């Protein structure tokens, strides 16, 4: 690499990654110097994030760039490749993590578990790992970086490791991540088809038989699903995300999960030459179940970060549904429709990165202001922390999929792509698709429920604890980060045509088609993915009209009547002893959902009896899968190891007997 003038985008990105590692090293040199870490290193990292984003955006249209680093195994150096797909996800990484890093600059405080310098190292290693995963072009560097990412995030999750629950969460997380990684490794092993060459180029060149192709896809689906949190591999997610410090939760939920989606797209569409429709059916089913499960569990959570984690599961499920649709379409040879649903997937990935990070950071600010994660002890914070509150409102509306914000656009595109399934052959699929569409609609609506609960319980109403009244608003750095992400949510929501122009090259890489030109032909204002007659949506106009009638009614009312206003105590229905504790609780808000979706939960309830001295009420809604899948597996392996343990029973004669028998058996082998 010579003078920066003729650097390619990939060089800039690699430079940024190197910069991150350097920053991390610098942090470790002064592990306890809080000022340098927070005020210098993290902002620097954020700047590098922006650099990555810009370079990636430039690379989107620049065509494929490759590089080979002199690292790695002999005969298998690090192959790197920056095509539109990588570039898009790198852009996602850069833009989202820029905001998160700035927030983190203000977030990490002194004396919380791991010293700030070490956190800084792990944080930037995490970023570097994710970026390298997106660049990887051979199995070895991919696996190395994939595991590095898992490792760094594991240590970040257990940053506050004195709490046993957090340690358990980290353990569960790393274990499932590792199992998934093994599956991915196997998938690559199948993909290289006995050639022994583990570069992705070689894998692309292989023509696998349908059976082996399907095996590879299933392994990849399992492996990446473990990282993304598809059912039934989701159990780590609601444990790990709340356990981590909020910027890390944001990074994991907003960006890391997307690397799994990236891997699935990379393997499923780009490396595997042909797709089969039944893969799509699988992805649709898994995705729908995951989404529904996630949102229903989110609705009954009482811990704000767990709630967001489950909502991440929901969104991942929606992404899986979109991927499933795309697989169906490609399986039946309709690339243009596949492009539509893939656009929805990528768009939603981008949106989720923004609004989920925003919300997680919001919870972080709340956590710092109140030291409280339990929804039942929060409330009324909009008055005390207006910045966080209003910005979180933007995030919540976006997450609820309401127009004109970004969450709605991608859900709109997803639903649109469902409308074309009529052309698909096969009765079974024709029965399945409407059901899935209905499921998606239901999930979207429930998402609204969840977000109303989230925002309403935390920020609205009366403070449920007196000390909340003293909670302070977010500091300068944190505000900047939050604003950045909120602006992103709005911009992504208002300018769909422009965003799709960015996504177009990606879908071309994946399925060879794109809806960019069609969208562009409708002008910048309207979003019409297929044709203006079929469907069109213009968030700007939408916003404009609502705002206009808002303003008009406001002005008219003032003009024709008056604007007098009187403050008074809320009406107490004639019951004078009303206090903040009498507000509806988080449990209460979730109760209808618990009622309606009873079979989803494994509920153990502890009701007070009339004779209790201190009557107490406890309700836990557990996860069936934990008891149906994980515990049995654990028991099985424990049983096996108990059997194996019998071998080692201490008597030397027995040991000699083992050797003797082994010898005789082998002699017999020779003898025959």
């Amino acid at each position, binding site marked *: 690499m010579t003078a920066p003038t003729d650097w390619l985008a990939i060089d800039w990105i690699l430079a940024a990654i190197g910069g991150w590692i350097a920053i991390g090293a610098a942090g470790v040199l002064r592990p306890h110097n809080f000022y340098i870490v927070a005020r210098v290193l993290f902002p620097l990292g954020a700047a590098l994030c922006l650099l990555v984003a810009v370079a990636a955006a430039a690379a989107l249209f620049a065509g494929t760039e490759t590089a080979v680093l002199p690292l790695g195994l002999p005969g298998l150096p690090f192959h790197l490749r920056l095509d539109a797909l990588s570039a898009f996800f790198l852009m996602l990484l850069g833009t989202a993590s820029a905001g998160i890093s700035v927030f983190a600059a203000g977030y990490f405080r002194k004396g919380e578990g791991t010293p700030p310098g070490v956190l800084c190292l792990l944080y930037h290693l995490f970023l570097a790992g994710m970026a390298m995963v997106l660049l990887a072009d051979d199995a070895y560097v991919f696996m190395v970086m994939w595991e590095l990412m898992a490792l760094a995030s594991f240590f970040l999750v257990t940053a506050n490791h004195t709490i046993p629950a957090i340690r358990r969460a980290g353990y569960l997380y790393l274990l499932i991540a590792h199992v998934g990684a093994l599956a991915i490794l196997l998938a690559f092993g199948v993909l290289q088809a006995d050639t022994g060459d583990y570069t992705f180029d070689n894998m692309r060149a292989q023509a696998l038989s349908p059976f082996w192709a399907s095996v590879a896809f299933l392994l990849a689906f399992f492996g990446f699903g473990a990282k993304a949190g598809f059912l039934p591999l989701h159990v780590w997610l609601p444990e790990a995300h709340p356990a981590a410090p909020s910027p890390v939760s944001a990074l994991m939920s907003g960006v890391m999960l997307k690397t799994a989606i990236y891997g699935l797209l990379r393997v499923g569409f780009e490396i595997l030459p042909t797709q089969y429709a039944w893969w799509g059916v699988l992805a649709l089913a898994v995705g729908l179940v995951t989404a529904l499960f996630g949102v229903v569990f989110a609705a009954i959570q009482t811990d704000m970060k767990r709630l967001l984690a489950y909502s991440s599961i929901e969104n991942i499920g929606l992404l899986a549904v979109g991927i499933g649709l795309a697989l169906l379409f490609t399986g039946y040879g309709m690339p243009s429709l596949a492009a539509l649903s893939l656009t929805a997937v990528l768009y939603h990935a981008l949106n989720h990165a923004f609004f989920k990070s925003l919300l997680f950071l919001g919870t972080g600010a709340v956590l710092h202001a109140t030291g409280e994660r339990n929804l039942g002890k929060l409330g009324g914070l909009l008055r005390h922390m207006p910045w966080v509150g209003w910005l979180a409102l933007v995030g919540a509306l976006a997450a609820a999929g309401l127009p004109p914000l970004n969450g709605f656009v991608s859900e709109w595109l997803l639903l649109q792509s469902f409308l074309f399934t*009529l052309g698909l052959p096969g009765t079974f699929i024709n029965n399945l698709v409407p059901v899935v569409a209905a499921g998606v609609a239901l999930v979207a609506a429930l998402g609204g429920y969840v977000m109303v*609960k989230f925002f309403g319980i935390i920020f609205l109403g009366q403070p449920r604890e007196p000390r909340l009244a003293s909670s302070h608003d977010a500091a300068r750095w944190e505000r900047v980060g939050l604003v950045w992400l909120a602006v992103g949510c709005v911009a992504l929501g208002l300018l769909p045509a422009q965003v799709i122009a960015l996504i177009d090259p990606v879908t071309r890489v994946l399925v060879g088609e794109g809806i960019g030109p069609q969208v562009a032909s409708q002008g910048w204002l309207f979003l019409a993915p297929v044709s203006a007659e*079929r469907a*069109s949506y213009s968030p700007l106009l939408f916003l404009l009209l609502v*705002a206009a009638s808002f303003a008009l009614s406001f002005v008219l009312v003032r003009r024709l009547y008056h604007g007098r206003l009187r403050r008074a105590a809320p009406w107490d229905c004639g019951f004078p002893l009303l206090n903040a504790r009498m507000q509806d609780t988080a449990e209460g808000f979730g109760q209808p959902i618990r009622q309606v979706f009873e079979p989803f939960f494994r509920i153990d309830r502890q009701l007070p009896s009339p004779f209790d001295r201190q009557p107490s009420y406890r309700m836990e809604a557990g996860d069936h899968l934990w008891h149906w899948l994980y515990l049995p597996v654990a028991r099985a392996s424990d049983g096996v190891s108990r059997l194996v343990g019998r071998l080692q029973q201490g008597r030397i004669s027995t040991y000699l007997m083992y050797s003797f028998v082994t010898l005789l058996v082998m002699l017999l082998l020779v003898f025959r």
Partner: protein
Amino acid sequence: MTVYSFVAQLLAVLIAVAGAPLLTGWINQCRAWLQNKSAPPLLLPYRTLHKLFWKESVVADGASPLFRAAPYIVFGAMVLACGIVPSLSTDLPLAAAADAIALVGLFALARVFISLAAMDIGTAFGTLGARREMLVGFLAEPALLMVLFTAAFITQSTSLANIVETISGQEFAIYPSLAFAGVAFAMVSLAENARVPVDNPATHLELTMIHEAMILEYSGRHLALIEWAASLKLFAYSSIGLAIFFPWGIAHVHEPVGMLLALPVLVAKLAIGGAALALIETLSAKMRIFRVPEFLAGAFLLAVIGILVHFLLGA
């Protein structure tokens, strides 16, 4: 867009905004007759609105700006909704801004804001109402969406204007799928407009009320806007139903004359529809709140079955 279509659009919105309270009044009248009470005057809703606007509005101490902004947002959303649903003519420039899915999104937006506003004060009733409203919403929304999807599958378009044009354009045909969708839609609109058997707009009985519980804290102009928005919502739903299931008489693009004809037709259809609604309300009894999900789940399933039927019969 031509001047003509601009006029059409404006007319549609104005008629909706002006006529919505009338529809509410008409329904109340019919109901009173059916329950052989002496009916309130037809224009009572207008007078109520006028009175409320004159009253000064009392806002609770803790209320945040959200609380005061919500009525305007809801009102604006409902106006827009009426603007994109073809009631008189399918020649609506605004229809391009939001299709059927966006319409559902619009209703959701209004619902979320009113619920948040209800939670803002922090009284027990407000949150309770909000919770129940969202409970109704999370089942009613997908059901409505599925109803619109049925129409969209038939007409291969989600733009309401095109749906109406296609359905009314082709010669008369029976769509079994639309039959299912119709029933589902009826149930949904009962729930969405806070009507018996789901909710009772006329009661303030704590245990049962949903919509009223949410707006308990509102008064004066805010209350007026919310009430107006409610009647606009009713108007919008009615015209959606009419547009999808009885689209005849709605003027097509490029037939200015149709507009003149469309207005009386619309009035007639609304009158019949309102009467029918009043009849349903009179005949059915208010459900317990936990029957509501079952009721709406039924609507949801009917809508899904409607689509399945369409997929299987191709009609």
